[in-house]
């Protein structure tokens, strides 16, 4: 049951985007989000959408997968849009009832909002589709390296993240097993009042926690036994490298993002 939750939802194909440096992809995501929030007109969003479409094509991610990532937030987005359509107000009124008012401005604004949110979601999931959790943590570790100067435990943080990612499938399996065992003993986890159900979770949670602690202990020993002694003197087998691919992608994206930002201050078709 829980196994179906594919964490990080990495989509394993070999593509131009998959091979990009994870650091670059993370920075790009941040730049993209900032640009979208700065955007003031449809032209800017259009550029962003085209950029993203291009990235999806190059990443060889099927359209269905991309749409699936949107589905999760669909309700939230449509709800926000509905509120804005009825309450935004504006000059050109199409329909009104009491304080509810559908206006041209409201419709445009809602559409703008919906597009913006969808772009955000698609861009974030593009990152997780094309980057394994491991290289994502590697990327974050590398990007945070300057913080080592202020004695921030960057290496430890990255190690914690990657161990956590590794243990997610194991703990999910374990949860399944414990639930199965409790059900076999007659525990009722799927029905009853909310209070009852919460109480029924306790016998699942406690063994899960105990086993997680035991595992942590065992893993600690296994790490010590393999000469782990913190980040000092440690070398890395996988080095992240900025290649020509990253350079091309960088130039292209930097240009377009700059375009979006420029459009904010010198709008062509303001909303």
């Amino acid at each position, binding site marked *: 049951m829980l196994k179906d939750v594919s964490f990080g939802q990495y989509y394993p194909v070999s593509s131009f985007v998959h091979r990009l440096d994870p650091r670059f992809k993370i920075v790009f995501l941040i730049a993209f989000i900032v640009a979208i929030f700065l955007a003031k007109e449809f032209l800017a969003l259009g550029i962003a959408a085209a950029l993203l479409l291009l990235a999806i094509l190059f990443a060889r991610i099927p359209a269905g997968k991309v749409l699936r990532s949107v589905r999760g937030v669909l309700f939230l987005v449509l709800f926000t849009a509905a509120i804005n359509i009825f309450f935004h107000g504006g000059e050109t009124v199409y329909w009104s009832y009491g304080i509810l008012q559908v206006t041209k401005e409201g419709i445009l604004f809602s559409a703008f909002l919906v597009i913006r949110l969808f772009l955000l979601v698609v861009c974030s999931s593009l990152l997780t589709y094309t980057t394994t*959790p491991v290289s994502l943590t590697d990327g974050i570790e590398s990007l945070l390296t300057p913080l080592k100067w202020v004695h921030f435990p960057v290496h430890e943080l990255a*190690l914690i993240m990657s161990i956590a990612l*590794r243990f997610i499938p*194991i703990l999910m399996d374990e949860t399944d097993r414990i639930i199965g065992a409790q059900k076999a003993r007659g525990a009722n986890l799927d029905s009853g009042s909310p209070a009852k159900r919460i109480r029924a979770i306790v016998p699942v949670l406690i063994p899960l926690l105990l086993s997680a602690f035991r595992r942590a202990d065992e893993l600690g*020993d296994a790490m*010590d036994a393999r*000469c782990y*002694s913190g980040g000092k003197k440690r*070398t890395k087998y996988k080095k992240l490298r900025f290649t020509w691919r990253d350079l091309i992608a960088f130039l292209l994206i930097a240009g377009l993002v700059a375009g979006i930002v420029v459009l904010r201050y010198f709008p062509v078709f303001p909303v």
Partner: protein
Amino acid sequence: MKAIEFRDVTFSYGEGAPAVNHLNFSAEEGEFVAVLGHNGSGKSTLARLADGLLTADGGEIRVFGNPVSEKTLSDIRKDVGIVFQNPDSQAVASLVEDDVAFGAENIGLPREEIGRRIGFALRAVGMEPYRTATISRLSGGQKQRVAIAGVLALKPRIMILDESTSMLDPRGRREIAEVVKRLHREEKITVLFITHFMEEALLADRAVVMNRGEIVMEGAPAEIFGRHEELLTYNLALPRIGVICKRLREGGIAAADTLGIEELAKEIAECVS
């Protein structure tokens, strides 16, 4: 030369009876020793002491002549590798090659050397085709082979397997037994094989039996298995083949205590014909 030597070593976890009690034990370089004993007899404590994961309360532990202490710890851990019991709580990384690299990264080897060692270690355990596989999708036996590879990447001279087969199915157990036998033969690694599957002691040159933190029996595996009554007093059941030999003798067939199935079959055939 002695690879591992325990001299009068005592250790206890807080109050209560010591988990290891005035223990004397040694293994020669290149030897393959099986350590048997029922639950709680102190086998894991022995393994942890040998690697400096625990510090003895009294006595002395030497690895290749060097006493185990805070100062020598990092060198000792390079020499002594431990493979633990649970296939799911030893790997640090998600991918096979990243996990095998972990130990080699810890001792600060250059990148190229780490790459070579990953290749060597995965070849040695027959997991080379899985170099970029995800560990959580492997079978129990494969996970334990990856754990062995992770230890091998540090090029240890001694390898301790602490019930590393106990959570595996028969096939996984066979895989591990074969890999360890090969490593012992080809890489000349000294092996301490801790197990409660009596049959697995047959892999070893010598077997020791632990009870309440002490070594109570010692000898060639076949000889130890011959001492049925004594084994029972230490809560150890005979392996099935040992039981068969015993029954045969009771039934009047002169089957010596042998442990190889082929040998036993030959003896029975001779007696019958």
